[in-house]
């Protein structure tokens, strides 16, 4: 129970940071998906079934800011985390580099799904190359840094290291 309260608080902070600190970089329009990073970390801790529920809450919290595309973030985040579960069952995803590549792919999937729900008409290919791809790369790099720090601080221990 205490753990879940802590996660609620952390999710709240992650969404708060996403909407305040992680605004798109000026001139570039790229942003780090802090909420997705948080959900990936949660998924490694609580299992994928529960992580999908957290993804629904996180998606709803983000959907609030764009009522016209409401539901998009729920589907995007929960799908990304569900896929993370599928992939992590198949691969040893706790290796930081592999996990960063996975985060890159998940961010891309998340963004593509959200664009499908968004009512704004943009050129899909151009937006994908101009914003989604760089944002996914930035998020993956940020995720790698966070993982390396977490490993150094012994907050996150990859299975290979444990063995």
């Amino acid at each position, binding site marked *: 129970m205490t753990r879940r309260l802590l996660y609620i608080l952390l999710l*709240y902070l992650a969404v*708060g940071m996403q*909407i*305040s600190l992680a605004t798109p970089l000026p001139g570039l329009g790229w942003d780090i998906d802090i909420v997705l990073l948080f959900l990936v970390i949660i998924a490694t801790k609580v*299992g*994928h*079934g*529960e992580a*999908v*529920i957290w*993804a*629904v809450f996180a*998606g*709803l*919290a983000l*959907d*609030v*800011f764009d*009522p*016209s*595309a*409401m*539901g*998009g*973030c*729920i*589907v995007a985040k*929960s*799908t990304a985390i*569900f896929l993370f*579960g*599928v992939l992590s069952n198949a691969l040893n995803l706790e290796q930081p580099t592999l996990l960063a590549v996975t985060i890159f792919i998940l961010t891309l999937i998340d963004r593509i799904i959200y664009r499908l*729900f968004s009512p704004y008409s943009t050129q899909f290919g151009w937006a994908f190359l101009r914003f989604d791809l760089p944002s996914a790369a930035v998020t993956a790099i940020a995720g790698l840094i966070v993982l390396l720090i977490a490993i150094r601080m012994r907050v996150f221990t990859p299975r290979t290291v444990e063995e």
Partner: protein
Amino acid sequence: MVTLIDFIKRHSGQVMWVLALIIGVLLSQAPFTVKSAISGALMDTIYRPFDYLSGAYHTFKNRRVENLQLKEELISTRLKIETLKEIERENLRLRRALGFSQRLEYATVLAEVVGRGNPRMPGSIVVGSGAKQGVIVGLPVIDEHGVVGKVISVSDNTSVIQLITDPNLKISAVDGRSRVQGIISAASGGKLVLENVPVTADIRNGDPITASGLGGLFPKGLKIGLVSRVMVPQSGLFSKVEITPSAKLATLEEVFILFTGIAGMNTDSVAIDTISGDGR
């Protein structure tokens, strides 16, 4: 029923994902008013702290800008106050000078000091009054405390004043108390020395020294300074008397040029007051 629960437990990830898809799709297909209502309700509750923080941050940012503007205004106002204080001090000084000039028996020109410390003439200052104000070479110059020097060069709007601390200027002087006479000349350290004073003369520290008027240039009675030290030699006929000038030579800002009536006199004929080493 048990089978369904087991299925959900075994495939929780898939079940949750399907539920999430259903919720997401349902929400996306909901009327805009419903979406707006949900959005508004959540915004008003869970995001209020962030809204508050964001507001506080912007307020802080605005206050910072405002603070900087106020600091700039403060500096500007302080400068204005300092300027006004300086004007006030100048006003007071000029009022005192005006009162002083009215007490003098001679016609005067109040001249502002516009330059000093000419390397070629360290014992001189330049004032902003010249021939156009009637100034001519040889006129004595004083401030409200005592003798400053004499005019040695005049142009249309400026004049050069030879200070009493210039070694080339010598003034005939008298002890105001004992009436012992001597010749004032410059000494080191901004001091003056009264020379040709017999060792037996009655001179004490603190005695006022005034112009004797014998030279004809400086009117009799003009204060020159105060005796600060009497040096009696072991052998010899004359003692040296150190004088501290009364005029505030280091901080002169305005001086009075006295029209004593001797202007235009042939300076060569003036006895002591015009003795100068460079022939001026």
